């Protein structure tokens, strides 16, 4: 053993071939270190390393994004870029954030607007403690730890007989206090390119009533009713696949031809102008944003898809016209930022997302996705409410020619 080690040492130290291989080998290492992309550099100098999140999973997939805290929206993500294993890095979202959390009570009042009325950021944003982020990393905004980043196993990526792979996902969450509630606001980014925005509702119930028509009895007996209410969550997704140019929004749905329920025919409609639509689980309605100018190796345009994951639907009074629809596509405009109570300023800058839909041609689509949860309180919700989660998925469609997993 020791003889073979000394023979190797002699080769590398005493022969020209050995020494030359050391010099060339280390030269290659130096070149690799010097030329590797700076992993913390965001695109186009759009954010500094403190506000740039980069993660590379075990299979080589990579996410790169910038984040900012804003008073109303809470955490805003920008330049969300995904690199499938061994493939090209491409931007998906220019900007992604919550655009309102509307909480109307069945009593008719109160009707809270958590984002435009109180704000999810600023003093509402928790300074997270290590207990908020076990097995994760706390990320500071310079004043307090506002984000928790975790990278976790997500179970099977696939299985086909002996062919098995497990996947990973990165989650980023912040927590905002809104009245008696605590909102856990999260975004998960998986190694297969899926994005899942989600909200966890916890804390304490905020409103009680003595009218049994509008609540569920909590506490001893049947005198004190926790008020039933909705959480109408709106996300705003400004897609820029690759760049802002060339993106098209489409609706995909299925109908039975001539009433023949044994068949389903696919229909695809491009939105050339701004559009407001409702969820339609019966026709499997889904939407995608595609860029026909960028194709995968199969020659298919790259896209990201959003399916209908609605279980509850909310249609409000005339004072809440935007609740007539669940899904909007609007032309990207800087001043159209909130689903409701959008501050006016500038040309065509209207009050709410329904009013943003005013016949403009869509060349750079922004998607507004609404999800509703009707909360019927239960005894278990007192005193501290178990977390209930709600969200949806933004999934690659033809981003790569085959399953990107190695």
């Amino acid at each position, binding site marked *: 053993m020791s003889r073979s080690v000394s023979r190797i040492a002699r080769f590398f*130290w005493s022969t*020209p071939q050995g*020494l030359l291989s*050391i*010099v060339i080998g*280390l030269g290659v*290492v*130096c070149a690799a*270190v010097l030329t*590797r992309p700076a*992993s*913390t550099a965001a695109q186009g*100098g*759009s*954010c*500094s*390393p*403190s*506000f740039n999140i*980069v993660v*590379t999973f075990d299979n080589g997939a990579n996410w790169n994004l*910038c984040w*900012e*805290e*804003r*008073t109303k929206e809470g955490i805003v993500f920008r330049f969300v870029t995904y690199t499938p294993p061994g493939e090209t890095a491409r931007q998906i979202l*220019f900007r992604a954030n919550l655009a309102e959390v509307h909480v109307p009570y069945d009593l008719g*009042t*109160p*009707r*809270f607007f958590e984002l*435009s*009325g*109180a*704000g999810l950021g*600023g003093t509402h944003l928790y300074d997270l403690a290590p207990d908020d982020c076990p097995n994760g990393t706390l990320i*500071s*905004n*310079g*004043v307090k730890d506002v984000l928790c980043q975790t990278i976790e196993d997500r179970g099977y990526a696939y299985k086909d007989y002996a062919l098995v792979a497990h996947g990973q996902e990165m989650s980023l969450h912040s927590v905002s206090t*809104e*009245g*008696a509630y605590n909102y856990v606001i999260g975004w998960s980014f998986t190694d297969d390119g899926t994005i899942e925005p989600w909200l966890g509702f916890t804390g*304490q119930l*905020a*409103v*009680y*009533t*003595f*009218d049994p028509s509008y609540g569920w009895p909590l506490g001893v007996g049947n005198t004190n009713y926790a008020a039933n209410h909705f959480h109408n969550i709106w996300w705003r997704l400004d897609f820029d696949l690759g*760049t*802002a140019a060339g993106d098209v929004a489409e609706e995909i749905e299925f109908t039975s031809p001539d009433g023949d329920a044994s068949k389903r025919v696919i229909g695809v409609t491009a939105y050339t102008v701004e559009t407001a639509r409702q969820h339609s689980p019966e026709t499997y309605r889904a939407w995608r944003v595609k860029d026909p100018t960028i194709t995968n190796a199969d020659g298919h345009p790259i896209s990201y898809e959003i399916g209908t994951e609605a279980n509850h639907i909310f249609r409000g009074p005339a*004072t809440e016209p935007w609740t007539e629809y669940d899904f909007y596509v609007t032309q*990207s405009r*800087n001043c159209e*930022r909130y689903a409701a*109570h959008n*501050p*006016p300023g500038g040309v065509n800058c209207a009050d709410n997302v329904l009013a943003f839909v005013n016949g403009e041609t869509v060349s750079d689509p922004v998607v507004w996705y609404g999800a509703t949860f009707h909360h019927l309180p239960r005894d278990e919700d007192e*005193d501290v409410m178990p977390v209930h989660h709600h969200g949806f998925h933004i999934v690659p469609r033809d981003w790569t020619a085959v399953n990107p997993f190695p």
Partner: protein
Amino acid sequence: MRAIPRISPLLLLRLAAVFMLLLTATLVLAAPRTESRPSPSDLRIGFDPLSPAEQSRAQEVALKHPAALAHQGQSQRTELLLVETHEEDKAVIASGDWPRRADVYVYNYDTDELLWAVVNLPAGAVEHVETMHNVQLPPTAAESARAVQIALADATAGAVIRDLYRQASGRDLGQPGQLRVQATLFRAADEPEVGVGPAAACGLHRCVYLMLATAEGALLRILPIVDLSASQVVLVNQWEGE
């Protein structure tokens, strides 16, 4: 004349190998680590949120602008509501280079006018300014505290809050600081059946719902609406008797 000592090629190669070893070690050790996250400094770029120094600078530049002085007028009742990064247009961002700019918002309770100033930070100049009515931003911590003072000073609402506090905690309410407070905007247009009487002005006026709890978190079953412009409670809104 001294003879130049002859260096063997093997020695040269050995020297080169040692040099490369040292160079590699230096480069690898000095390379940035993805896991070591630098702490946010005052040096901010692009979409980074404003640093505390940038916020102070933006406020200072905005408040001495003639439009801000006119907005203030003779009023002693103005409030700095918000200073944050200006949201630039996409075309500006696509250019890859843009100056750091801040939005500064100031409210005048006497005129119910909101002032919005866009400050170019490197230039130290106000580049856009406008005033508007009926636009309300989320309440600040100072406004929440003031709304509680107004509610406690109100004969009806104050008595109910003290009574509910005593029931919930077994103690008398001494200081407003003993209450856990959350304030959120109230606009009459959002709830036409609630926004009647003195509450009808809410929206044009700056009004908040007050959610109150004991420091331990026991909710007080009242949701008063306070008009910060008129400095009065416009709805006591106790849940008993509904």
